[in-house]
């Protein structure tokens, strides 16, 4: 009987859920929301994601860098939020993930233009990443002239840079032996 009295005392404990929204707390970690405009394609989120929910790879004809997120695999840990340098990916308060019939509705996708290496002509990074770096350098006080000189260096892939450096070094060493 005591338990029944308690029911009267505490009243309703349930929500009319779909009709009445469920309030989550402020720091709730829900579905990651992706802002395409901010993304620079640095792939930090893809490396950090422990459950492989975020995949970043080149498309088939190597013209675009494809960013793909699968909410069905996500464990809502928020590692992507932590590592993103531009705030393109932030955990939202959204927790309703049910989709009708099609699993693909759980996926999100973004395509970014690829930058080609000026020496070997292979894709190695995104256009946005390079312009982001230049933008940041401009902000810390580099003048336009120096930046213009550096543009070729920035548009060379790491492998070619290494080879170039090796060539210079070998020349230098050969000269030294003579």
């Amino acid at each position: 009987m005591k338990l029944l009295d308690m029911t009267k005392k505490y009243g309703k404990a349930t929500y009319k859920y779909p009709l009445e929204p469920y309030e989550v707390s402020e720091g709730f970690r829900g579905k990651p929301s992706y802002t395409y405009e901010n993304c620079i394609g640095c792939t930090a989120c893809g490396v950090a994601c422990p459950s492989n929910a975020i995949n970043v790879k080149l498309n088939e004809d190597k013209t675009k860098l494809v960013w793909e997120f699968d909410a069905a695999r996500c464990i809502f840990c928020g590692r992507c939020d932590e590592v993103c340098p531009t705030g393109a990916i932030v955990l939202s308060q959204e927790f309703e993930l049910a989709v009708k019939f099609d699993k693909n509705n759980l996926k999100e996708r973004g395509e970014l233009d690829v930058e080609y290496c000026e020496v070997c002509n292979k894709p190695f990074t995104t256009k946005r990443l390079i312009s982001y770096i230049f933008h940041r350098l401009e902000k810390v006080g580099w003048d336009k002239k120096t930046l213009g000189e550096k543009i070729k260096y920035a548009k060379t892939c790491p492998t070619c840079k290494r080879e170039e450096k090796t060539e210079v070094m070998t020349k230098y060493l050969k000269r030294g032996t003579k």
Partner: protein
Amino acid sequence: MKKGDNLINKVKEKITIHEIYRQPEDQITITVDRNDLPETVRILYYDLGGWLSSMIPNDEREINGNFALYYVLSMEGGKMTPEDELPQDEKCWITVKTFIPANDPTFPSVTLKVPAAVWYEREAYDMFGLTAIGLPDPRRLVVSDDWPEGLFPLRKDAMDYRHRPDPVDHKDEPEAKFLKPEGAGVLDVPLGPLHITSDEPGHFRLYCDGDTIIDADYRLFYQHRGMEKLAENRMNYDQMGYLAERVCGICGYAHAIGCIEAAEKAIGLEIPLRAQAMRVICLEIERLHSHLLNIGLACEVTGNVNAFMHIFRIREFSMELAQLVTGGRKTYGNVVMGGLRRDMTGTEIKKSLELLEIIEVQTKEVWDAVMDDKNQVERWKGVGLLDKQVARDFSPVGPNIRGCGFKRDSRYDHPYDFLTQLDFEIPTEDGCDVFARETVRYRELLESVSIIRQCFEMMPGGLTVIKPQTMIKPGAYAIGNDEAPRGENIHWIMHGNAQKVFRWRCRAATYNNWTSLRYQFRGNTIADAALIVCSLDPCYSCTERVTVVDIKSKKTKILNYQDLKRYSQSSKNHPLKNM
């Protein structure tokens, strides 16, 4: 004189010890000859007051050409009487290590002397092909019945893990035999294999004489996920914590802490006090919702749905509390090596304290009402008795053993730094039955609330996470322990090359509890079987269907869920009466 030295000296009097190795201060590994193994474990277990916490078989052929076995004993004192306990500063872990040559993978069974080792030794054969000679129960345990003979999945060179091996033809499957008592008129009642709310389906065989269970046996591991192997192959330490969380749906956070703590201890990393306090808070929140769940289910199994509803209403507050503290309704996704990822603000702490108040007041109210209900208490009292000696032999953990009067708790025996500053007691009950276990759970709830309050008060400022600066040494190993709601979780990690895991052994609390369940069933009625399993807290709630086979007359009868539930609630109209 270091911790545990006098225990080691006592062992030395009888056994030759080849090597003594200390990883952290309180974790000692002694290497003995393989033929001395059973005697060493027995001396440590019964004479010096140890409890078998875990056993790790390991494939170390690429390191030293041998297999190795590690019997992890938690040295706390026998605790059969209140005086029989080691002083607090002498409690430690002693691991008995032995090498097994690769060309002769056998070792003398420890089970004959220490019954608690039975499941571990069965698993050692399934996973590594290490045969325990003289093991009284050599059936398969971990791998399924259609797994090919002679393929041992955790050996480093066993198989290509990208492909699943072809299952054995149904006709060639070894028969899954159950331990059966002899005698005429014994009814064989299968229970399971699927329980609706459980992640781990289990199959129980109850052998009954009329209504009374005279013996029981069970077959578990229907969903072996191969997590230990997954961690070895692919994971780094940032990802390991998240994998460890997925071991269990209820006490996942405790697993993450145990796993990360093992990795931290192996490199000697001290985490900031604020992070320790936050870890304790999260563990206690987990205990709150897990215990509320179990008390609720124990009421529901005996038909008291009203109490179940009330307790689940209160449980909702504990989920909200978890949301405030960690950002998710479960406490997941928060632990990293070196601390915790999320800090708390002042307003969040204030709201949490309000929620704690609600939980405390309402839990007390509901529990008092349940205790006033005579029928409810009668259904719990005297059911599922776990004899004290059986408990001592099989090393169960958690409320299961604290209900037998043993004061075994990881927070008390092997505490973190921050826990030693807190003021709390470990509740124990002497009833040994379901009632005692539920009472222990209730009293722990109140303790948890008080611990969280103390943590909020004493929580020091500063960072919650530090970056580990030490490189991980290959071959170093350590134990990580913590008290999950169901009992003590033990994680054992050996580091490999390239900052990865060489071997991860995860021992969940319920693993230690299963072996003694058989003795808890004996002498009870079928109607109480569900309640006894529930009081163990393995997320058991529902039996879909039961087939009853009368061995004598070869008749079968199918009882549906409704029948069994009605009978377990009213104990009238025996469903097998007309068989």
